[in-house]
């Protein structure tokens, strides 16, 4: 393959990897939009949902693979919504009105707890996740290899992004979610049911994260620590893209992954050992020049 071919291949690889970062980033944006909080347990909750989906799905898979996977996905998403809402209601609600820092630390605690609980129930071995098609399947377009899994993941994420963008900007519920995060007191006074909105926000984010969890597990198998490394990239993407923008988070996540890949290969002084630093250098630069993120709205305080 010539070096242009390699370049294009690396971009395609980056988009595939970035789709997974993007999926988790979207969930983080969603929770942030709904609660003003960064949820470090988002990856852990996504993995938990995937385990539930796998366990239920595997009951049906022997009868029919496609049906089994479908049941698994539906159960995983539904269970995650319930778990997300439950965690908001019975854990995070206790910190309502407290320090922001306390809430963030609580989510880190949740991550540790959820990972441990998954290990206790399902163990720490890698478990294959049944999927609609064999994730090794790939095809070649003009010499560029594209895996079916990558394409599926990419399209799913773009679709989810569009739905979220519409939700936040065009629907009453989306506006309600944002209002509650922005100013719970005023929202309550204007008739928005704050508690319910918070629960819905957490539930939706958990459900969204679980879709990412399933896509990742379909390729890399299921393990309690699946999202540990990816969470860091997702957070970087969220901050670069802007905490308030689903499109920003997705663009940033894809950009990070592509840039990282290209820098590792074409900048010899960076190489594959240092390429992990690329997104974070970018993060510093963005924070200095545009603290609200590339696509974020500046928060304006009126006096």
């Amino acid at each position: 393959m010539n070096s242009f071919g390699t370049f294009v291949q690396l971009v395609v690889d980056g988009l595939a990897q970035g789709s997974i970062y993007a999926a988790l980033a979207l969930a983080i944006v969603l929770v942030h939009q709904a609660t003003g909080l960064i949820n470090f347990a988002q990856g852990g909750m996504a993995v938990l949902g995937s385990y539930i989906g796998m366990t239920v799905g595997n009951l049906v898979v022997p009868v029919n693979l496609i049906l089994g996977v479908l049941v698994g996905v539906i159960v995983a998403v539904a269970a995650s919504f319930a778990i997300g809402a439950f965690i908001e209601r019975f854990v995070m609600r206790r910190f309502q009105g407290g320090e922001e820092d306390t809430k963030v630390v609580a989510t880190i605690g949740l991550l540790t707890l959820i990972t441990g609980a998954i290990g206790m129930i399902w163990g720490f071995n890698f478990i294959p996740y049944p999927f609609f098609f064999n994730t090794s399947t790939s095809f070649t377009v003009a010499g560029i290899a594209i895996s079916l899994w990558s394409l599926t993941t990419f399209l799913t994420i773009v679709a989810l992004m569009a739905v979220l963008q519409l939700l936040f900007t065009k629907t009453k519920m989306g506006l309600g979610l944002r209002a509650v995060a922005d100013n719970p007191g005023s929202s309550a006074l204007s008739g928005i049911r704050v508690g319910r909105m918070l629960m819905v926000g957490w539930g939706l984010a958990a459900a969204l994260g679980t879709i990412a969890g399933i896509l990742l597990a379909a390729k890399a198998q299921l393990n309690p620590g699946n999202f540990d490394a990816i969470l860091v990239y997702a957070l970087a993407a969220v901050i670069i893209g802007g905490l308030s923008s689903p499109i920003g988070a997705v663009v940033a996540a894809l950009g990070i992954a592509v840039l990282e890949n290209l820098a590792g290969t074409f900048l010899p002084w960076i190489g594959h050992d240092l390429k992990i630093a690329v997104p974070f250098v970018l993060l510093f630069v963005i924070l200095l020049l545009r603290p609200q993120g590339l696509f974020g709205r500046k928060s304006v305080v009126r006096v």
Partner: protein
Amino acid sequence: MITTATGRRMLAFAASAGVVALAITGCGRAEPPAGGNGGGNGGGAAEASPGITDDTLTLGITTPLTGATAGPGNCTADGAIAYFGVRNAEGGIEFGDGKTRTIEIKTYDDEYNPEKSVTNFQQMVSDEVFAGALGLGTPTNRAWRDAAAEEGFPQVLVMTGDPVFSSREDGYLDLGLVPSYQQEGGAFGEALVADGQPHKVAVLFQNDDYGKGYTQGFKDAIEGSDDIEIVKELSYEPTASSLEGQITELQATGADVLFHAVSVTPLAIADLQKVAALGWKPILFLPSNTASPGGILTPAGVTADTFTGVYAAGFAQAAAAPPFAESEAGKAYFAAIEQYVTGHEQDGKAFPHCVWSWTGAQILEEAFKNMEEPTRESFYEALTSISGLETDFTFGPIDTTVEGSPAVQVVELQKFNGNGYANVQVVG
């Protein structure tokens, strides 16, 4: 008594919760180790070491039971738990001093964290453990090596390819179990040279002792061969979430051999999928811990024809290969795993470490049979004096008397045939 897997998982959960774990370590420290004599050895000459009585010997295993390395980690304990479970049920093992003892195994979770393994060592001392054995991991075993030497505490048959554990003459009561990474990489290098054809090699290695060890062994073996050229070497950090960029870059070199010194399961699977997707059909070399047919190759969709050839260096039969389950020893192995290892995650074949642990237990048994006094020194003496011991699953006899070498030394190159591995001499 054998600590059960369920018990371990409960502990794992507690550790995750944090507070409880602190309480446990706190309690452990509160009780100082009882001095010197752990068991009343009646009329014997030497005073018995801690952890051995007239009818039991307590063995400690500190290894990752939770976390990313938990799969192989649990296996390092489970093989021995199964093996000694069988022996204990038969009444125990007759030691060299004429007494018959059962073997009690205590497992300690170090989460692949060196700080935890040091704490676990202190815990083993206060729990009156006779010796530590079979633990997995280079950094974790290194972390308590000096402390163990100071205590005169044996740290034996550790599952790391680090040669530092295999000197008999440095005063440390330590010994490695598995062949060094260099030996495995070297076995592939030699077979590639033996092929006599020109080869262009792309190398992908983990940027630590593991990956560098494999690569060094390979380079040493091909040194002086004009036909074999390393066209590109790329490294990665174990925390990376994808190596596809490296694979794409290596494929672009036009190499016909991929030396794949990658130890992380999901990365190894994704890499093989990527190599296949790119339409690249290299001769592949895989390290023994990421070459399992059931754990790696099948999930990656690799068949006998996917690549030009898939090779791995191994020193023991793979439990996942069909002939293993049909052999008498294999049947006994699976029956013992089934009976004595609790917990749904271990089937004894997802990771090779279960078989390695079983092998380690056989070597320990031989040492127990030959130790003439109930002391750690006598045990170490017996352990490092074994030669010609045939075990159930290793490719060659065990010889622990060679200075600088681990207990298992015979490494064979194997080729994947679609179901399992068959031994070969030459690549190609």
